Every structure is written in C-alpha cells, then in structure tokens.
C-alpha cells in the first residue's frame, strides 16, 4: 500500500495544491507508485484513485497519455535515445542502431537478461550534445550527453554489475 509506505511524502505532494484540487497530485502519485517497480499496476491505480477521489479509469487515462508512465514491466532500466531531427543530424540514428546491434536487440526491445530496454524517443532538449540519451529507472531520470557506443556499453556494464551486487545482497526483487 502506497499510503502506508509513503504517508509523509503523499501528504507533502497533496499540500502543493489548494484545497479541493487534490486531483493535481495524480502525476506525482503515479511517479511515486512507479518508484517501486518501474511500472504502475491496477492496484496502485485504484489506490491513487481512492486517495484523490477520482475513478480508476481517470488515473489509467493519465498513465496512457504520458510517455514516461508504464502499465506493464519492460526492463529495469530504459535507455531512451533522442533521434529527433537535430540529434539525427549529429548521428543519433546510427548510434542507436549500433548500440542495439552490439546488445543483440532491436530498437524498442529489452536485453535478454530483462535488464535494459533501448528505445528511440522524442526530443529531450539536449540537441547540442547528441548523441545523447536519458536513463530512466524507478529512481528517476538522468541525462547522458555526448555519448559514444562504447560509453553507453560501459554504462550498461555498470548497471548489470550494480544489479548483480544488489541481487547477491538479496536487496533486489
């Protein structure tokens, strides 16, 4: 239950908005729910609906509309490469293609260990430092700019070691 685990944080999110406007908190609460497992399931949506006094369908429509929300598991980490026009003019399409080849996947797929999904995304407002991508995890988002395929592969190696370490400690799953 989110309300038990994050009682204080939920209160602080709700307090940002005027009385009677709790619905505004829906976006933050979906992020909060995703923090658990990088996607939001039906139970979480129902709980958020309950907190805000709206319907589950309304919460689901928000999850469906925005691109940073996920309603099913798709890898622990998402590497989202911007391939919009300015980045494409600086080689981001080739970067994405080669990165995927080296990982043995197609753009939009997740690596065989279920860890990293690599996908093309729309503009990330970092056009001058392409190729670039953002790394989205349940923890949040980080930009990686002026990248090479090698630097991206190094990052993925680090992510794999990090997860392996966490799993050995029993801290993960």
């Amino acid at each position: 239950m989110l309300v038990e685990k994050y009682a204080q944080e939920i209160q602080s999110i709700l307090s940002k908005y005027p009385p009677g406007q709790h619905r505004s908190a829906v976006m933050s609460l979906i992020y909060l729910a995703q923090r658990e497992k990088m996607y939001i399931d039906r139970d979480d949506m129902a709980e958020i609906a309950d907190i805000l006094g709206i319907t589950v369908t309304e919460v689901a429509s928000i999850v469906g509309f925005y691109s940073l929300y996920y309603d099913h598991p798709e890898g622990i980490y998402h590497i989202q490469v911007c391939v919009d026009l300015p980045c494409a003019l600086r080689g981001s399409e080739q970067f994405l293609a080669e990165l995927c080849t080296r990982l043995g996947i197609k753009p939009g797929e997740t690596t065989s260990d279920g860890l990293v999904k690599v996908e093309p995304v729309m503009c990330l407002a970092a056009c001058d430092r392409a190729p670039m991508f953002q790394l989205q995890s349940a923890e949040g988002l980080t930009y990686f700019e002026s990248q090479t395929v090698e630097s991206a592969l190094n990052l993925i190696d680090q992510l794999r070691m990090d997860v392996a370490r966490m799993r050995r400690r029993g801290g993960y799953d």
Partner: protein
Amino acid sequence: MTSLPELAPENNFPTFPKVNNNYQYVLLRHREITDIDNLNVYRRNGGFQAFEDAVKRLKPADVTDLVKASGLRGRGGAGFPTGLKWNFIDNNNWPHYVVANADESEPGTFKDRELIARNPYQFLEGLAICAYAVQAREAYIYLRGEFWELANQLDGHIAAMEAVGLLGNNLFGKDYSLKVYTHLGAGAYICGEETAMLESMEGKIGQPRLRPPFPPSFGLFGKPTIVNNVETLTNVPMILKKGVDWYRSIGTPKSPGPKVFSLSGCIKKPGNYELPLGTTFRELIFHHGGGLADGRKIKAIMSAGASSALIVADDRALDTPMDYESVPNVGGQLGSASIIVIDDSVSIPWLINKTVHFFRHESCGKCTPCREGTYWMEKLTERIAHKEGTPGHTLEEEAELLYEVASQIKGKCFCALGEFSIEAVLSGIERFRSDFTS
C-alpha cells in the same frame, strides 16, 4: 530497488566566446559567474534586490508598467508582449496564479534547461517578481518530466529561499506572501501549449482548451493565471535592476533585449548563444557557431525548431536579423529561436519525415485535422523519404498528394501543434521541389 551507478553525467555546459568583450551576459550570467547557482553568490551579485525593491517600494501595477515599457516579448515562441499579458490579469476574480512554462520540448530548443540548471535564482527571482506584479501568492513551475533532476534541484533552491525569507509569509515586512512549487510533467510536447499545461496541472490529460477565454482571465483551477516561459522570466530581474532604457539599448526597437539562441544541426559548434535580438543568421552560424563542416554548404535554416518553415539559406536570408519582425520576410518565424542548420547533404524528404513523425507522435488526439492529418502525412512522408512511392504513382504525384493533405490541415487545427506540423512540409515542397523528384 537498486540505485543509479556512480557514473556522473556530463552536466557542465560548455562556454563559448561572447558577442564581444564589452557585452555583459544578461541571461547566461553563469558563464561569467560560474557558481551563481549558489544563493549567496547570486545575492552577492545583486540577486533578489529587484524583488525586494519591488515588494518594498513599487505598486504591483508599476512593476507591470516597467516590464511593458521594456518591450520584453515572450521567449517561448509566440513573442507576445509580456507586460501586456500581465496587464490582462482579471482583478475581479481571485486568487491569481503564475505558472512558469519549463516544458521545453521543441526539437532544437535547449535554452531553458541551461538557464534552470546554471542560473536558477535569476529565473526564480523573475518568477517572484511576476507573481508580485499580478498579486499571485502561489506560483508553479511546470517542468517536463525528463527534467526530473532539474526539478529536484529547483526544490532545493526554493527551500534555500524559504530559509532566508525570500519566499514565505510577509516578505520584507510587507503584506505580501508567496509560495513556489514545482510540478513535473511526464512526457508530452503538447503540454508546452499553455492551456494543455494547465489541464495537465489539474490532473487531466494534457489537451488544449478553447481560447478565449485566455489564462489571464480563466487559467489554473479556473482562476486568472499568467503563464510565462523560463527565459522570459529570467529577463525580468535585470529589467528592474538596470532599467528600461538600458534594456532597450539591447536588440531592436520592436524586439528589444537579449535572446538565447539554441544552435544545432549541421554546425561545428552547437550550443546556446546569448546575443541581442536582431543579430543576423550569418553572424550566429558562421562567426559564433564556427560554420559548417569542411566542404559542406548551407542549404536551409529552421529558425523555430521542428515547427519551422524551411528557410532557403541564400545571402538574403543569412543577412536577415533574427528578430520577431524580420524572420517572416524570408518565410520563417523566430519562434523560440532554435536555429537548426541544414547542410547540402540532407535530403528534404527525409527531414520532413522526421518532423512529421514527431508531430504525429505528439498529437494529443483532440482535433481531427491534427490527429488524422499527421497520421496520413507520416504515411506519405515515409513513402517519399524512402523513395518507395505507390504502384502507379510517381514521387512527384506522392509529393502533390502530401501537399494537398498538408494544405487541408492548415488553419483547421484546434491549437498551434497541428499548424506547426505542416510548416516544414509545405515550405519543403514549395522551396526544395528538386528534392522531390524520382
């Protein structure tokens, strides 16, 4: 859950030579004072004096008058006079709100990100001054979801301001209180449209509202609201501090002040450049930007990101001043001044396929011309870009059909997104027809 690895992302923005040695940065001041993102440093450099002076000594309407007199125009793309917008606030309906638009999502635009990351307090001071001018006691910053780290940083800056009495109750001993909050979006270009942003902030899907009524009369939670872009607000403290005459000495009479130009595409030194409005394309691209790769020629310029018409980059265009009045003379718009340089290796059908794909993906689905129009345009641009064609149809005929579809979208969309989607398509076919032959 595992934490992110300790691989520091590259967060230090590069510095570039200034316009000339006499020019002092007005917006990108962190390039001179590198730790200006520290509250004490910002204050030591005159920060928050303008806000304090305004609250202590100026009537709210006087602040609006100063901004009006400065000629500052909205830097988000529309170029609407900022003071005039503030003047529109409905004083018969309370409370008032201010929302800073930090949803920067236009392909080619990356100026607000640098301002928030490196000169955050000047932006926050501008936001506070705007709030005082329209007597809003609550202000929000709507950041695109991808600016998650920036939102966390801003939360820290807001807390720092609260701790020293720059935000909170009875500021500077006066009967004025202000709270500032961040609100994170979740990946939707359309939320940069101000009414879609307000819908999103109200916890609904981000689809635009019918205008009028405009936000200064019916905005957030149905209350009078001023929505301003980050860069616009970042101008405001300097206008109050240094005066209207000084501000108007930069730029042109109808487009006063400095502008951050985001330069990208086929260019040696991409990046943000703060220059006076009215600087020519040539100076930006060939002097500051270092020109194009060796052996490449400039073919086209997109001056307002992916929403731009393609300007033929001839001498006349290159010598055109980048201000709100002049760019339309060469068939473009200044918009948010996101200058994408296109060289002679780029195929225009490939380019418009890129921009149309973007708009199809980001169409909110509310109105038919945009939702269906971008869908069919994408089908056509895919075929044309890959020179596939349809059996029995030449590429020229496909281009004609695309032109017809785009023309039917024109002027029929609910908001600007749909209208933006056809700019590169129509101008591309009209001005680069030889690219569309078999």
